[in-house]
């Protein structure tokens, strides 16, 4: 495999984490414009724990998950009264606040491989984990892809659990949810927190892969992409977000003559897909229809 393809596949894998985190929030009926910040927090956390503290990668990624989940927990408590447009705008401003405060984080250490540590707008340089451990790009792709697969498979298994069914009901109709004894608050908080953790985990992998991060990487456009992927993919099934990722990066960016106009094409494509499929390509209704077909086939 050429390095070019490996890089594209790795990028697709990494951005899928944001797409899935946006998907998790969409399940409970909210739209978040702020998942990029949790991605950024995870990236900084992992960079700090591997490059500064010398922690093991598994510990580092777990820390990235936990810390960004904690930030998301704060967001969910702050926005407990908000929904719809208000939640979307609040998540955007929360994310921008987190990102802007990274400009003020300044703690560098001189090592024999250069300056290490977050350095305000200059970013965090020299995250040397892949060099120190001799990880080739192919190996890194395997690591990233297997974590993504593990995440998706566990989501597919949880799809039929009570937790997910109730969360979907909360997202669809809070009044019915309350009338059958489901507490919307609990599902909202736990899904927003979980989504923050997932984004942070992806951010951690991103920091290791990129070896260099800076606050401006985690701007709003990253969040738009993640959200757009999960929206056009649809909320029916955890594979939905990956469809969006595939359309954008797999199709538009990798085809060379399209990649220059990728943003123009993709923006229009999202709007067009939303006109044809307002609920995304794999919509919940489509999934129910397929399930019903399968049941009928079994009975026949």
């Amino acid at each position, binding site marked *: 495999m050429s390095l070019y393809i490996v890089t594209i596949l790795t990028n697709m894998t990494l951005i899928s984490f944001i797409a899935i985190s946006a998907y998790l929030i969409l399940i409970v009926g909210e*739209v978040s*414009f702020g998942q990029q910040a949790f991605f950024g927090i995870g990236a900084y956390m992992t960079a700090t724990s591997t490059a500064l503290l010398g922690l093991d990668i598994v510990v580092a990624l777990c820390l990235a998950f936990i810390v960004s989940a904690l930030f998301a927990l704060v967001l969910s408590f*702050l*926005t407990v*009264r*908000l929904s*719809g*447009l*208000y939640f*979307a*705008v*609040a998540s955007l*401003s*929360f994310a*921008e*606040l987190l990102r*802007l*405060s990274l*400009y*003020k984080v300044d703690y560098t250490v001189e090592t024999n491989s250069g300056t290490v540590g977050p350095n305000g707008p200059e970013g965090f340089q020299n995250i040397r984990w892949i060099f120190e451990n001799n990880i080739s790009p192919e190996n890194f792709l395997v690591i990233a892809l297997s974590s993504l697969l593990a995440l998706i498979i566990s989501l597919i298994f949880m799809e039929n659990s009570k937790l997910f069914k109730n969360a979907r009901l909360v997202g669809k109709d809070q*009044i019915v949810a309350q009338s059958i004894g489901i507490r919307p608050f609990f599902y909202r908080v736990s899904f927003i927190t979980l989504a923050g953790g997932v984004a942070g985990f992806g951010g951690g992998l991103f920091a290791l892969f990129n070896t260099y991060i800076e606050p401006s990487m985690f701007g*709003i*456009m990253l969040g*738009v992409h993640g*959200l*757009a992927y999960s*929206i056009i993919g649809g909320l029916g099934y955890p594979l939905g977000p990956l469809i969006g990722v595939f359309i954008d990066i797999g199709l538009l960016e990798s085809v060379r003559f399209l990649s220059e*106009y990728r*943003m*123009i094409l*993709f*923006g*229009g494509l*999202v*709007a067009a897909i*939303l*006109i044809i499929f*307002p609920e995304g390509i794999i919509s919940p209704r489509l999934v129910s229809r397929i399930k019903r077909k399968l049941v009928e086939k079994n009975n026949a």
Partner: protein
Amino acid sequence: MEYIQISIDGILYGSSYSLIALGFSLVFGVMRRINLAYGSSLLLGVAIALWVENKLNISIIFFIPIVLFFCSLSNLYVERFCFAPHNTKAGVVVSMISSFAIWMQLDEISAQLLPDRTHSFPSLEISTFEFGGIFFRGDQILNIFVAFIISAILFLVVYKTRYGIVLRAVSNSADTAKLMGCNTNLVNSLTFIVAGVLGGIAAFLVLSTESQVTPLFGFWCTVKGLVAMMIGGLGSLTGAFWGGLLLGLLEAHFSYQFGPVFREITTFSILLIVLIIRPGGLMGVNIYKDLKSRDERI
């Protein structure tokens, strides 16, 4: 004295925010939707106008109507593409996301039209004057004046004319208005065109005080306009006016005290605090309550 000078500068700078926020407020007030592509559609209008100006080399008098025309045209494009197809209740969020996606597209087209990082913009060349030891920028005084006039005219149109009655009917309940024979489709398109003209005026005034355009103008417009509107009050025209000035005032003081990054930090902190404490904004509480009680009706 220094304190007063900073306050004056802040308020005058805030007039740009007010101008942008008025367009946002108009769209939200009528359609109960947020158009996140507003800033980028203004950027696109300006970019096309500059491109035309470059080709034809026209004077500033003809340049202004060209800016207004292309701003309203690109706004109409957003309405037709992102808002008209999603006119059901479930479409509120879908249209917002759709406009969010179009944001990328419009920004990218503008970047292709304006390949340089910064691009000069015709300035009105109004001089700064001094009054009692305090300096006032003439062009910013013009901005605040125009913002005030526009909000006054909009207020009169919305509350005193037939078109205003239709607007308020559609805003109150689009379905009922439709049953009463209003062409809601036309009203929505008109609203976007008017918002485009307003935005064009705003964009022209703001850019001529800066005398340059950067590709970040779209993002700047959307964020500042949105924040100013949400602080002042969702869908409230006077709220948008005062919200912009207040935002400018606070930003000026905080960035003076703590450094330039705090200009942005202030913007988002204020927005978050207002959303948490008073989600309808300072002057739009009734609209917020009304929408909320409608959503929660069983």
